[in-house]
């Protein structure tokens, strides 16, 4: 029962945060400087008569007062999944553009998060467990190096080495322009294009996870309950798995959730470096073109993504650490 109250409280908290973001997003884009008519027509307002401008404003509901008229429209539309019309891609709704760019980024961010956490946590545990070993010194050194590296620079270096110089991987894009690829060939083509961007994002975060996991494990290994476990005569592996790692994982999970926003930010630069058309590159294009409806939709999605990631972390926390859900 208590567990359910904990879950309900966390979900409610996430929903409230999301509602706040929704409201904030509306006002944020209303205070940005620009003339909607000019943005819509992409031409000079001098070419349009006053009547035409009024008609345009009316068509888009921009002649209504911001509150409550425009605001209620906005909330209703968002709840129905209608995020408006993009200026940049005429004839397409923000939702369509968004969905078309969603899966490449989900694939990129999802896989790189998976790899960086698995590898980072794994090597972190090993390093902490075998402190001062050659593996610890080497992996911690490499981790510090990777942690300090800007994503775009790392991406460019990998691109120059593995794509331009060695020619092992394509220099960018999501898929080849070649026609008539079979199912397997197509899959391999997608993997080949995904490889370097995914490697870049993985390397960019693996160091951080390694360092956090290692230091948190070292903290835990000094705790009394670990000494107690050892005194009970438990085998070292059991001490590590049951007592040390499980507790040491907690701060790492918080970090992974908190990092989710940064990984999305990293996707923007990495997608730009590799011309990998996804939500990141779309954000860049929307920003440079001042496509406010599209940006508004992307902001909303990214915020929702970070909130959901935090919710998952909270729930996982409750599962891993009974103290949390009973508090």
């Amino acid at each position, binding site marked *: 029962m208590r567990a359910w109250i904990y879950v309900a409280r966390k979900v409610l908290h996430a929903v409230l945060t999301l509602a706040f973001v929704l409201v904030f997003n509306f006002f944020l884009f209303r205070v940005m*400087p*620009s*003339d909607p008519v*000019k943005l819509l027509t992409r031409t*000079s*307002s*001098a*070419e349009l008569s006053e009547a035409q401008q009024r008609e345009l404003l009316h068509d888009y509901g921009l002649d209504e007062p911001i509150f409550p008229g425009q605001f209620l429209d906005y909330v209703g539309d968002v709840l129905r999944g209608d995020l408006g019309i993009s200026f*940049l*891609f*005429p*004839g397409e709704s923000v939702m369509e553009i968004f969905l*078309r*760019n969603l899966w490449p980024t989900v694939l990129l961010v999802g896989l790189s998060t998976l790899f960086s956490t698995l590898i980072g946590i794994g090597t972190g545990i090993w390093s902490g467990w075998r402190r001062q070993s050659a593996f610890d010194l080497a992996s911690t050194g490499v981790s510090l190096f990777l942690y300090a590296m800007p994503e775009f620079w790392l991406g*460019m270096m990998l*691109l*120059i080495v593995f*794509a*331009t110089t060695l*020619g*092992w*991987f*394509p*220099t*960018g*894009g*999501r*898929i*080849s*322009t*070649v*026609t*008539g*690829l079979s199912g*397997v*060939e197509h899959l*391999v*083509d997608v*993997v*080949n*294009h995904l*490889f370097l961007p995914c490697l870049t994002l993985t390397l960019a975060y693996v160091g951080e996870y390694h360092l956090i996991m290692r230091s948190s494990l070292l903290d835990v290994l000094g705790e009394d309950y670990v000494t107690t476990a050892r005194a009970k005569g438990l085998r070292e592996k059991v001490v590590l798995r049951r007592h040390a790692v499980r507790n040491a994982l907690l701060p790492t999970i918080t970090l992974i959730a908190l990092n989710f926003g940064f990984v999305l930010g990293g996707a923007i630069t990495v*997608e*730009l*470096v*590799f*011309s990998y*058309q996804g939500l990141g*590159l*779309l954000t*860049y*294009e929307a920003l*440079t*073109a*001042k496509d406010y409806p599209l940006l508004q939709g992307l902001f909303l999605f990214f915020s929702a993504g970070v909130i959901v990631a935090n919710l998952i972390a909270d729930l996982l926390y409750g599962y891993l650490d009974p103290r949390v859900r009973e508090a």
Partner: protein
Amino acid sequence: MGGTMAMRILRRGAAAVLGGLLAVGLVGTAAAQTPSPTSARKVTFVVGLTNDVRTFNPLKAIETPEYETLAVTYDTLLRWAPDDMSPMPGLATDWTRSSDGLTWTFTIRDDATWSDGEPLTAHDIAFTYRFIVDKGFSSLSNYLPFTDSFEAPDDTTLIWRTTKPTTAPLAPPWIYILPEHIWGGMTKKEAKQFENFPNTVGSGPFRLVEWKKGDFWRLEARDDYWGGAPHIDELIFRVFANDEAMVNALKAGEIDFAEAIPTDLFAALQGEPNIATHVGGAASFTQMSFNMCGDQAYCQKNPPNRHPAVTDRAVRLAIAHAIDKQALVDRVLRGFGTPGTTVIPPVYPWHYDPAPDELIDFDLDEANRILDEAGYRDTDGDGVREMPGGGRPLEFRFFVRTEDANSVSAGKLIAGWLEQIGIEVRPEAITDGKLIDQWYANDYDLYIWGWGVEPDPDFQLSTYTSDQCGVWSDTCYNNPEYDRLYLEQKTAPTREERMAIVHEMQRIIYRDIPEIVLYYDNDLQAYRKDRWTGFVEQPSDQGYLLFQFGNWSYLNVRPVSEAAGAARPRGIPPSVWGAIVVGIVIVIGAVALARRRVSEEERA
């Protein structure tokens, strides 16, 4: 314990399953490694771009990739000759002009077809022109001035009547002919919202077949094109997020052609063994514009916020004398361009070259003398001149473009020279979007911008007329004499007479200095010479290989050999990936087995 026994059996079973999987994986890899019979690969030509296409609707096209695609999917009434860009037959094979100069009769070819199989006739052409004029597509109707009527008495005759004599029909009108059977029933609103994809129906040498938004779009050659089938099977335009990525893809051989390459990347390409670099014709220019807003309605509505001195010709002349255009070409463009003078580039016969006594040369002493004489003196000794009679110092706001690195470098150099004549300008790099906002609001003193100029000078010259203020005019320049000449050149009875007027108009702009043409910048292009040949340069001297006025190169480009044109995906081949996956599975399996053996021994 019984439980342990059961576990042990389970583990044995798991090991057996793992072994089986390994065997299957190995066989699979072996199968993948045997070369599959290669289907005949298509001859594919891939062009790299850094800006994306937004629409395939000819009535809405504004960006380079859109025009380049239209040029291979549609036709125009006449074409621009590859050697000198003069008008030559296109859909029209022949034409005559009535003695009063008001009626043009074109003979339309009978072998042109639409990509859906329908014949293209004179009715389609008359329909398209009428559609544009009647529905008021203002950006295109400018090419059809003084229209009286368009008629198609039969399938191969087009009669074009004008209310005034004009040579505009030979301009040639830059309007792609639309199929009446597709566009016929549309209202203006429907036509503007028409996606024109999929099922694009055009008459050009290629047919649009695929659009992977954000990645590329693919065109297929038409064997039945009236101008002859292209020598390639497929044409692909691939979009890159930045110039470096595009150039890297060219080096790696993923694309075959790149254009609008920045000078530093271009210089780096020049040593590459398989790549041919091409310095294309300078049909564009970069200029520095002054806020000239006068008494036009737009300026009344949006009163200019500017330094009063920029409206004084003496100040503008002094600034023009203080800019070393050769140094800009050498240092900003690395030599890939020519110093600027008038607003029609020298690549065109319409260009006017200022006479020696008209030439405003680089002369800082002369610039200082002009300012002294006009009464701008440095009264407080801070190195910056003040307005005549003291007061406001000559400090100008100067916008340059973050999206054009060259303009930023040019801005810095110009600020340095102006300092030497006692004018302080602070170059501020802003985005194009922001700059356009400043320009709409008439809130600027100086800025740098650029133009690509069409073979016919009409449009470019129109941008300096007073009624283009707030529309296309850079500066809101306002000169009734110029406006009169603009209309006069539209109705000049002969090319020679029109030429004289066009020259005079350029002279006026050069003399009045609403803007200073800094340089004509080259278009830098490069292609894989190990794979392609047959490009047709337009114009023939220092011309463009692609992104020309027309589709000459696309009709003629061909692979150097059959193998060279065949496209294949880049990257690690499926067989190697298969081997890697199997390798990983083996390692994981071996480690797992070893550990289990250890723990079993421990327990035993």
